[in-house]
């Protein structure tokens, strides 16, 4: 029996039972489309994270104290450099005034979480950041309406604040927040500026935060001890490494660190943050891949089921064909072709659906198809369909014709 005869016969078999064929096709289609699309979503979000981190600029360094105990112990002032040297405002001012060639600006930052209220609304768990005006040039937080506070506001510990857009709307619905007063844990601040809307990349929503002069936040909430973070902007993204070593040497001098291996702070660059984020995005992709693999498996089980039913149903037909002189291989060939045609057509349709689906944003993420997922999904589904189409057919074909004929 020639190949063309087998394929003609198989095609006839596929077309003569449309419902069964459509169900098989659908099972494969959904499995394949799910794998490709879910991996594409994972990949898309990974790329989105990468690009949003890139947009922050890779020229910033953050310095964080490692010893948290020290901050509370000396919050009333009087640093004892001998035990736990602390990065206080004074240290950052010294760092800032030190003439470091690759450092563009130094921004001390202190964080707290407070309940904020206006005359009409109250919002709890609001992140309050104390910083200097350079904060707005170093980070993605930009003032949209109004103005940032100034250096003299920092010097004077002015009771002013710049707030996120969402917080502005929550506290002053339908009105401009500029010039209004907000109460932060009993301290009244005047809103001077509202931030532009930012995409949320971290744990906190940047659209609900409050940024105030660091001196004001220290005097009202956190005290004059160590700052939480020092942001250092290098002159360019190429100068980050140079800036890091300059800052480290200078800080070790200022803090009188004798053992450089045991610095009381850690320096993180955006590039290391990028690596971490990339890692988490990758594991997200893996997670989606697992979900996709499960859906492929479920699709495969559906196909298997249809194939098993098909073969059982057609055992009598196999018996007739054997009685007429069909060899085992002719029967196997026919079922192989039938299963192959169904799963391949279903798989290709699945790829088409996935490619079309990837054109649309899914939950704000533009899916990016991973090339390897196409042959992978196709290969696995075709293999499942063909194996479970052929294996029971092979058993039926190995029966004596009379056994096959007697089955209903």
């Amino acid at each position, binding site marked *: 029996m020639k190949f063309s005869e087998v394929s003609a016969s198989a095609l006839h078999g596929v077309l003569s039972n449309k419902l069964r064929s459509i169900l098989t096709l659908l099972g494969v289609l959904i499995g394949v489309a799910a794998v490709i699309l879910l991996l594409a979503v994972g990949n898309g979000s990974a790329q989105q994270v990468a690009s949003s981190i890139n947009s922050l600029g890779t020229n910033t360094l953050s310095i964080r104290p490692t010893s948290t105990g020290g901050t509370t112990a000396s919050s009333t002032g009087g640093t004892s450099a001998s035990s736990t040297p602390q990065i206080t405002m004074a240290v950052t001012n010294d760092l800032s005034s030190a003439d470091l060639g690759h450092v563009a600006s130094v921004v001390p930052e202190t964080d707290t979480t407070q309940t904020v209220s206006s005359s009409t609304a109250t919002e709890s768990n609001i992140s309050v950041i104390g910083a200097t005006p350079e904060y707005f040039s170093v980070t993605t937080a930009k003032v949209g309406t109004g103005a940032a506070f100034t250096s003299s506001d920092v010097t004077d510990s002015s009771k002013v604040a710049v707030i996120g857009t969402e917080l502005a709307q929550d506290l002053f619905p339908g009105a401009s927040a500029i010039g209004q007063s907000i109460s932060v844990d009993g301290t009244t601040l005047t809103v001077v500026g509202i931030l532009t809307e930012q995409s949320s990349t971290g744990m906190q929503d940047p659209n609900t935060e409050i940024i105030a002069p660091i001196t004001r936040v220290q005097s009202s909430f956190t005290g004059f001890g160590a700052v939480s973070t020092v942001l250092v902007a290098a002159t360019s993204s190429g100068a980050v490494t140079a800036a890091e070593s300059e800052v480290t040497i200078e800080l070790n001098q200022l803090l009188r660190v004798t053992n450089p291996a045991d610095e009381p702070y850690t320096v993180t660059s955006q590039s290391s943050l990028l690596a971490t984020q990339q890692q988490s995005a990758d594991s997200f992709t893996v997670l989606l891949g697992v979900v996709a693999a499960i859906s492929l498996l479920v699709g495969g089980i559906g196909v298997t089921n249809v194939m098993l039913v098909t073969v059982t149903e057609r055992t009598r037909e196999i018996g007739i064909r054997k009685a007429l*002189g069909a060899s085992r291989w*002719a029967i196997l060939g026919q079922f192989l072709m039938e299963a192959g045609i169904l799963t391949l057509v279903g798989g290709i349709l699945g790829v088409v659906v996935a490619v079309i689906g990837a054109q649309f944003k899914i939950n704000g993420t533009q899916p990016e198809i991973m090339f390897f997922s196409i042959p992978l999904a196709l290969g696995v589904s075709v293999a499942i369909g063909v194996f479970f189409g052929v294996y029971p057919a092979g058993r039926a074909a190995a029966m004596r014709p009379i056994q096959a004929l007697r089955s209903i």
Partner: protein
Amino acid sequence: MAATEPEIPGFAAVELIDLHQVYGEGDAAVHALRGITVAIEKGEYVAIMGPSGSGKSTLMNVLGCLDIASHGTYLLAGNDVKEFDEDQLAKVRNRELGFIFQSFNLIPRMTALGNVELPLVYAGVKKPERHERAIAALEQVGLGYRAEHRPQQLSGGQQQRVAIARALVTTPTLILADEPTGNLDSESTEEILQIFDGLAKTGRTIVIITHEEEVAQRSHRVLTIADGLIVRDQAQADRRLAGAGVHS
């Protein structure tokens, strides 16, 4: 290869020597055939009669190579069927045997022509020739005009005629019919029997299983089976003289 060689001159079409068929084992064993020895010559038209459970269908399945006997020898045109492997058996079924079933066993999703062509497809006959031979076989049974109909669009008698055309199309050594008229009315039965008469006249070897006397009467020779043994083997002429079996 042996399976496809033309029949060897001097050999009977079918020769069975002490054929046994046992299903199951031990106490549960069922002895369907208990030692059948018979020869059927080329050109003979033989009817096998017997009550249900007598083993006549088992014998038919062994003759048709649909089943393999447990013991004994089955020579088909001088070739021992036991020596054939799976693929050779398929070729034997394809070229040497034409099977007609009580329940027609047509493939429902194929046209009459498609069904008749099927054995030729497995024989590797090319499409134009296949088509021609299938049409000829259908015309032989008077159904040339129904070639494009599907089995469910045909009457029982027509379906059986399609099945006969399918059995004839490969010009087999032996035509085997298992209760071919069992599901048919008397008019269709007569049509089918006329076709068999015609085939017998042209020298085809036919073995037909039946429990109907009017069917058996058309044959040249009647074998009666009971409990897995041939209990009577009579030529039709002798039966008429003896007047045996007429009242069954």
